[in-house]
């Protein structure tokens, strides 16, 4: 608010850090024959040119597979850094990069999913989930449709670009300030590259200026460069990617190509579905495996697919390595099924929202991977409530009336649901630790493994700790996330930050509270279970009667100190009862599901395909909200980010494989002008989630997929320009994409998708 909250790149001026700048390859795929740094080294201010020769450890920053050389011998995407110049000023580093001579031998690149399929270029083996007999069910169906859907990726566009700052301390340990969602992994990879042990590296993350998954594994390389530079030039080294570098070099949401074949009944009920999903993993594996799995886990969204087969595979292309992004594959899976359902509805000339409802899960149903859909009736409850509260039926009539009176503008209305599985699908990641310290004046330090990126995690954790210890919020301070306080943490991701870390903090606080209760019990001559902690006071009750007097929390703490009772404690939490068998494609990968639905209304201009979001109504299930202000922020922000992905945000690559949209002037995120004119958000009442901290539900990712309602509303409006039938819409549905869809709906030729 005052500009005093510090981010990584705010720290260097006080340290007199040197600056690193990347030498970016001007090829999409090429062999690196030689790097000649001598001329650059001779330029003013240049301290070092980092190349593979400087790596004492392993020249690789890959998180799951060792397939990401920090200094590559083969360029695998356009703009990949070959070497890094370290200089006294940024300007000197930038200039010297132009003087680093690199010899390349260009090689033919793979530039699309379709080319990868032709050339059998893959990063994974096929993955399969299956239930029933979809082939037979499709054959036996009254109606069949098949088709193809291409979904483009999405740039994270965290406002704070990737940044790291490293120095070597007096004990020759390396300290790295990193804008990372996963300090422990950053620590591991810095140590790997330097060839030192984990205990020689400390990573700290103060906060991030947005991350959205883009700093889950892709913060590691820059931290490694900063650390390597600092050890080489013996002074602090700063890496901060410019926006252009960040967009050209870092991974994005996966593009997907989907092919489907569906068999369905007269009323639109899906009887059999076969789906193939290919994701564009880019040049390295990164997190593409689990992203694809999550897409496959979510192709059902809220719908009971009795006979279904989903096959997925990650393609290897010469693009930046696709990575985690809010939703982690689930948005792609859901867009596909919503697309299929809308096509079915329009094919049958039925109302899409009726067809969706007919396919909903009911109580007792299982997903296609065999997990019971607990609280399946919430889908119906949310749906019915929202149709009512948004006056859906009435507004449908109004839209139809409007459309009848306007040749060049049409309004569209749609409602779509969301069911999102909470937990890392890799079960071992579902653990968290905390370290809580109480000082003699009664104030508290909370350390935990989660990182703050704007999602309000620290706000929620602070509240959990204050509640658990019965002290004022102002007595609790959340410390920067550091690897020397809580080790071996998981990434703050999968919407699990407050579920996992909040639970660990609560365990630590409970331990302290039990100890303090015993101290109090001895002084007040009551049983420890009769001691209560509230509002900074510690009270005791005997029978149901309060014992006269109470102690300040700080007094109890001081007594505990004098009695030599430890005033710090660790906490640990592991999500119980989750498992998944990749071989059979069955299990219970999720602790629970979060539900929601959204109604969107748009107006589309028939001249240009431009559109406006008139109104959005959301009903979302956050359990018992830990912080309604934070949760509403997550719902609205996630929704608008999803709208961006599905509408104005378009990644465009040149024919030779360079990203053309490398800045805010070419890549268009929503501005205030894209915010809906009317935006109503409600939380589902009576929605306590058992077995989760404070009965709350994860809220980071699920709302993003509520934005599919906007895509479907656009499709509805496009359909109104024609006389019915299936409406194909590209993803993102840019104004141009919408325009060509309108032309097609009007029965005019000329629709030509630009990608696929």
């Amino acid at each position: 608010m005052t500009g005093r909250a510090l981010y990584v790149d705010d720290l260097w001026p006080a340290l007199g850090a040197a600056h690193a700048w990347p030498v970016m390859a001007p090829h999409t795929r090429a062999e690196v024959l030689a790097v000649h740094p001598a001329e650059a080294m001779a330029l003013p201010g240049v301290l070092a040119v980092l190349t593979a020769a400087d790596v004492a450890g392993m020249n690789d920053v890959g998180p799951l597979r060792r397939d990401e050389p920090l200094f590559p011998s083969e360029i695998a995407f356009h703009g990949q850094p070959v070497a890094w110049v370290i200089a006294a000023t940024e300007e000197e580093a930038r200039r010297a990069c132009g003087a680093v001579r690199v010899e390349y031998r260009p090689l033919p690149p793979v530039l699309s999913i379709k080319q990868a399929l032709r050339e059998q270029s893959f990063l994974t083996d096929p993955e399969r989930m299956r239930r029933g007999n979809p082939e037979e069910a499709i054959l036996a169906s009254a109606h069949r449709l098949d088709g193809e859907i291409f979904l483009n990726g999405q740039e994270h566009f965290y406002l704070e670009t990737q940044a790291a700052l490293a120095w070597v301390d007096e004990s020759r340990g390396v300290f790295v300030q990193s804008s990372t969602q996963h300090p422990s992994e950053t620590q591991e990879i810095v140590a790997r590259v330097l060839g030192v042990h984990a205990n020689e590296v400390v990573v700290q993350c103060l906060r991030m200026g947005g991350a959205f998954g883009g700093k889950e594994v892709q913060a590691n390389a820059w931290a490694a460069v900063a650390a390597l530079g600092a050890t080489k030039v013996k002074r602090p080294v700063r890496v901060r990617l410019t926006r252009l570098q960040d967009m050209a070099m870092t991974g994005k949401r996966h593009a997907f190509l989907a092919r489907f074949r569906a068999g369905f009944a007269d009323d639109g009920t899906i009887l059999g579905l076969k789906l193939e999903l290919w994701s564009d993993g880019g040049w390295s594996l990164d997190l593409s495996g689990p992203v694809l799995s999550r897409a496959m886990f979510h192709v059902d969204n809220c719908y009971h697919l009795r006979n279904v087969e989903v096959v997925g595979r990650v393609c290897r292309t010469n693009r930046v390595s696709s990575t985690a992004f809010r939703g982690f594959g689930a948005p792609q899976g859901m867009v596909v099924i919503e697309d299929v359902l809308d096509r079915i509805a329009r094919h049958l000339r039925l109302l899409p929202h009726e067809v969706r409802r007919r396919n909903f899960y009911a109580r007792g149903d299982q997903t296609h991977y065999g997990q019971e859909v607990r609280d399946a009736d919430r889908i119906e409850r949310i749906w019915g409530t929202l149709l009512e509260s948004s006056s859906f039926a009435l507004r449908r009539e109004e839209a139809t009336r409007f459309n009848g009176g306007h040749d060049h503008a049409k309004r569209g209305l749609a409602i779509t649901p969301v069911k999102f599985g909470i937990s890392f699908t890799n079960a071992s990641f579902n653990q968290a630790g905390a370290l809580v310290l109480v000082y003699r004046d009664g104030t508290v330090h909370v350390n935990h493994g989660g990182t703050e990126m704007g999602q309000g995690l620290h706000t929620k954790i602070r509240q959990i700790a204050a509640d658990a210890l019965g002290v004022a919020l102002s007595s609790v301070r959340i410390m920067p996330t550091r690897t020397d306080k809580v080790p071996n943490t998981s990434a703050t991701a999968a919407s699990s930050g407050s579920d996992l870390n909040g639970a660990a903090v609560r365990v630590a606080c409970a331990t302290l509270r039990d100890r303090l209760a015993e101290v109090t019990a001895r002084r007040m001559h009551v049983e420890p279970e009769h001691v209560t902690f509230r509002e900074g006071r510690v009270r005791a009750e005997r029978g149901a009667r309060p014992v006269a007097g109470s102690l300040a929390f700080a007094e109890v703490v001081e007594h505990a100190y004098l009695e030599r009772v430890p005033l710090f404690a660790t906490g640990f939490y592991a999500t119980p009862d989750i498992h998944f068998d990749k071989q059979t494609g069955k299990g219970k990968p999720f602790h629970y599901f979060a539900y929601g639905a959204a109604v969107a209304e748009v107006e589309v201009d028939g001249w240009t395909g431009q559109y406006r979001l008139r109104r959005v109504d959301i009903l979302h299930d956050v359990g018992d909200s830990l912080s309604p202000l934070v949760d509403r922020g997550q719902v609205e922000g996630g929704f608008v980010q999803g709208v961006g992905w599905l509408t104005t945000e378009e990644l465009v690559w040149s024919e030779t494989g360079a990203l053309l949209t490398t800045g805010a002037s070419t890549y268009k995120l929503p501005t205030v002008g894209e915010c809906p004119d009317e935006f109503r958000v409600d939380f589902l009442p009576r929605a306590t989630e058992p077995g989760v901290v404070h009965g709350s539900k994860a809220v980071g990712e699920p709302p993003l997929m509520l934005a599919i309602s906007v895509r479907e509303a656009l499709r509805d409006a496009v359909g109104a320009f024609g006389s019915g039938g299936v409406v194909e819409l590209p993803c993102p549905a840019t104004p141009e994409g919408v325009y060509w869809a309108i032309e097609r709906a009007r029965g005019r030729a000329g629709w030509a998708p630009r990608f696929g």
Partner: protein
Amino acid sequence: MIRGMAVRFVLDGQPVLATDVDPCTTLLQWLRASGRTAVKEGCAEGECGACAVAVAARDGHGRATFESVNSCLAPLFALEGRAVVTSEGVSEPGGVLHAVQQAMVEHGGSQCGYCTPGFVVSLFCEYYRPGRSGYDPEAISGNLCRCTGYRPIVEAARSMSLPRVDDPWVQALPRLAPAAPSALPVEESRHGAGPQPQDECFTGGGTQVLRPKCLSSALQAIGSHPKATLVAGGTDLIVAANQRGDRWAEVIALDAVAELRSFRESSGELTLGACLTLSQLEEHLAGCPVKIPLLEQLLPLFSSRLIRNRATLGGNLATASPIGDSAPVLLALDAQLSLASAGGTRRVALADFFRSYRRTALGSGELIESICVPLPVRRYQRFYKVSRRVLDDISTVAGAFALDLDGSKRVAALRVAFGGVAATPLRLRDVERVAQGRPWNPETLAILHGALEPLVAPITDHRGSAAYRKAMTHNLLERFFVETTEATAGES
């Protein structure tokens, strides 16, 4: 006077002296390198507003005001003698939050916090906007937020009351703002310089910047440095410096030349000084009895408030970008340019100004002094912008149309101009000629479509395909026909 590499200004109430700086340094680079954390770099091309600062200024009516500016595109030398406020300085040091910060907190307008200082500055400027009654949504059109979805920020803005008369900034503003006219820096009055304001010269890092204070010395400078790069608001040029590392040996900054900021209506034309900022132009037009619908439709769609506070009409034309939005509008208005050099001035029709991609008719030693719009303007005018977003976007295609009909509803004059469909902004004289004298009816429209067809051959790029752009030229023409037909029907 050679001052060399030093710039003096007031930052958050404190006088600062920036010494030993490269003249190409932006305000943002200097602030961050000196450890000021209340400005962030989000894009370095004036699109995200994370670097916004408030600069005390005079609006088009001469009133003291705060202008929000992207510090990533403001050369440090342009701040000479000015007062700059960052989000760190909006409230008293150590004191309570400013009203706009308080509103942001209460409405949950900040999540990751990185864009927040920029939003605070934009709202701060809006808070003190003279004559404000409500909230102008364009105040934050140049600020991107990736976390909140904007609703809480909009509500924070809507909740802002009017500042009290004893508000410290209300009190200080007349003192902080430069003496009217705004082009005259306070520097001169402070140092009691003579009546002739002195030109400034900044050198270092292989660059020399001349910053003349009046037109005659500007023309003299350009005459003696014919290869110098001219910069007005810098909102295009500095992007190239930031993104591509462009540097220039000689730069002549025109932002302090008062004569280039005139706004005159006389003898059958409206004269717009080339270095009027677009925001000043908006304010002048709002107070001007002559209404120019094309300009009024254009300006709110032109980039964002943060850009319009620095960008100039002359700059937008001189860069000759095929997608600059002012060109089609001014082409449709039959604008002429007054080009000045030390040898005198000459008039060039804007339609003859654009020669080829990014090349103009500007001769060596010449600058655009003013843009002249002949009056009265045509009866029917429309500007259409086809872009991905409503606000803060660059056109895929922009179309500007102007039309006069005679008593029998025949075309007395038609003007058709497009941006984004050729290497230069394009005026379609052949279409205009064909229309002349014909009835304004569907048959004529069909003829115009036929005439337009061979004239437009756009390219495919990341903003749109050639086919879409071509379709848009036809559709915008048709839309203009439909809308004017509806309008004329209402009049008969």
